[in-house]
């Protein structure tokens, strides 16, 4: 999977004629690529455009600009039956398992519905549904349960099973553990890791929780205001974060070790309003090291080697 200069601006409609009065600049020129069998973490604050990137990739949204390539084919403008075929390979797991499961359908109905709609496993849907449940660590007894009869962790397993139904190659995971208790988060992440090892899935992991990325992802992309500000191998980023935003983000994560003394970098101000067009560096208002040039020109992408890329004037 590769995206080039991916951009999405949502129009804001206003007035009685519903004319476009402005844009929400959600994603602004994002580039990255993910190899087969690899996990890439996409982190950022709420409103940084990370979920929009996920939706663009599974083609729930049309990009304003830019291109998406899957297995070297341009999939940016797929329509109709081609799109349906593409969706077999690319699936998404959403944040809240309770909201993405139909409360009036049993687990079996939900799994079979997907198979019927794509006309696969005809005649053996039931057997395949059991196999899927076993793959995510559940069993036949859960087949006739409704979502409310399952625990949070089990619900998330069903959502994952449903995404695996079509035997995809690429899965977008949007905050897969955010709504779960800490005591079961690791279970779900282990399951995802295990499935990847067995079936060689590629993941795009969207999250605000850097600890989740550290646990299951090799590569990490940090977004701010729709722009990729830093890209690196996860270990390098945790050891030597370069962008001032990444540094403050890492320092803001609470660590459950009361003996550890850390210096916190507390950012001033609020995240920027995505309605304002981006001028120069999006982080300028909150950056502790802001310089004159940051307010004039957009920072260049600096390659620090080993795939570590940072977008900041400090490093130029």
């Amino acid at each position, binding site marked *: 999977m590769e995206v080039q200069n991916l951009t999405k601006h949502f129009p804001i409609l206003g007035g009685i004629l519903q004319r476009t009065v402005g844009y929400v600049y959600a994603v602004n020129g994002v580039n990255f690529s993910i190899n087969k069998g690899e996990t890439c973490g996409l982190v950022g604050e709420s409103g940084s455009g990370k979920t929009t990137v996920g939706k663009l990739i599974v083609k729930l949204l049309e990009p304003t600009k830019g291109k998406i390539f899957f297995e070297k084919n341009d999939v940016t403008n797929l329509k109709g039956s081609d799109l349906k075929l593409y969706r077999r390979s690319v699936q998404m797991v959403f944040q809240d398992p309770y909201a993405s499961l139909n409360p009036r359908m049993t687990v079996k109905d939900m799994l079979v519905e997907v198979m019927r709609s794509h006309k696969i496993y005809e005649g053996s849907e039931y057997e395949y549904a059991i196999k899927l449940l076993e793959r995510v660590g559940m069993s036949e007894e859960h087949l006739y349960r409704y979502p409310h009869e399952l625990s949070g962790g089990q619900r998330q397993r069903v959502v994952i099973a449903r995404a695996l139904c079509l035997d995809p190659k690429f899965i977008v995971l949007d905050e897969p553990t955010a709504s779960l208790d800490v005591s*079961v988060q*690791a279970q779900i992440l282990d399951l995802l890791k295990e499935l990847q090892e067995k079936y060689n899935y590629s993941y795009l992991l969207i999250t605000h929780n850097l600890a989740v990325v550290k646990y299951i992802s090799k590569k990490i992309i940090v977004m701010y205001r729709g722009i990729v500000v830093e890209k690196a191998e996860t270990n390098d980023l945790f050891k030597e974060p370069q962008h001032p935003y990444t540094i403050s983000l890492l320092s803001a*994560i609470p660590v*459950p070790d009361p*003996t550890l003394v850390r210096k916190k970098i507390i950012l001033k101000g609020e995240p920027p309003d995505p309605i304002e067009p981006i001028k120069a560096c999006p982080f300028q208002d909150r950056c502790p090291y802001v310089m004159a040039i940051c307010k004039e020109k957009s920072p260049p992408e600096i390659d620090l080697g080993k795939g570590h890329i940072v977008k900041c004037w400090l490093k130029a």
Partner: protein
Amino acid sequence: MLLKVENLKVEFYTYRGVVHALNGVNFHLDKGEILGLAGETGSGKSVTSLAIQKLLPPNAKIISGKILFDGIDLVELNEDEMRKIRGKRIATIFQDPHTYLNPVFRIEKQFIDVLLAHDPDIKKVELKKEREKLARAKAIEMLKMVSMPAPERILKMFPHELSGGMKQRVLLALAFSLNPDLIIADEATTALDVTIQSQILDIMEKLRRGKNVSILFITHDLGLIAENCQRIAIMYGGRVVEFGDVKKVLTNPLHPYTQGLINALLRIDKDIKPVSIPGTVPDLVNLPLGCPFYSRCAYALDECNKSFPEPVIVDGVRVNCHLFARK
């Protein structure tokens, strides 16, 4: 001691039967202290907070126990007496600031209403206009204390015009404006981004030190407790199962549940593989007779299934576990 909760039991009456939400909660909070209250979903954290404020829904009832606040038993108070304490002496900051602020009134009106109703200095003034003027000045002063830019402008805004972090700062300002003795922060920063979270906690700590307020800090994030609290109470199945100094509890957890909770955390500071706790939280309708953690515990003994363990003090930490009662 500012707050002492003794053997608090709360039941909810639902169509499924009686939900035993709290089954004898014991903890105390000193003046000027921050106590962290941690546990999984359904462990009784929020019910404890609601019981202290006597804001339990109509189908819930305090069965027994005491909530001693500055020597007064809140359980015995009627609604009129409670209203004088709530907001004024015990203030709360809830998880979602959006649902707490009234969307149809400007921040100014919401602030002034609270001050006019509770602030003794403002209530003394006779003229209504004078009172409102005083309240407005106080509101501006408080908003400045939470480092809000342009407080005069903020007062004229509606809640939807503010970002999540700003709304939470308005609530902080409101909570602190009446000089309460106790602030209950119920997952107050959960809905915020981490950079905003540390901003809010920094302001909260400054205000707390300045005014010597006690805080009951309810969260599921042990990291936040490690960094902000002096003592910690771990809840499970409607009881506090471990209670003591944060450093002691988090570096040397005694209760198997506390150990499990810490081992399940995803760490950014260490390369340790997290281990989930097997099983799920107990059904509070059919609560087991013995220790509620029995079915998930790796060290379970025979007596664990028979009776709930009596508290034992180990190195200043109180723990309810048969493993220690035996020794």
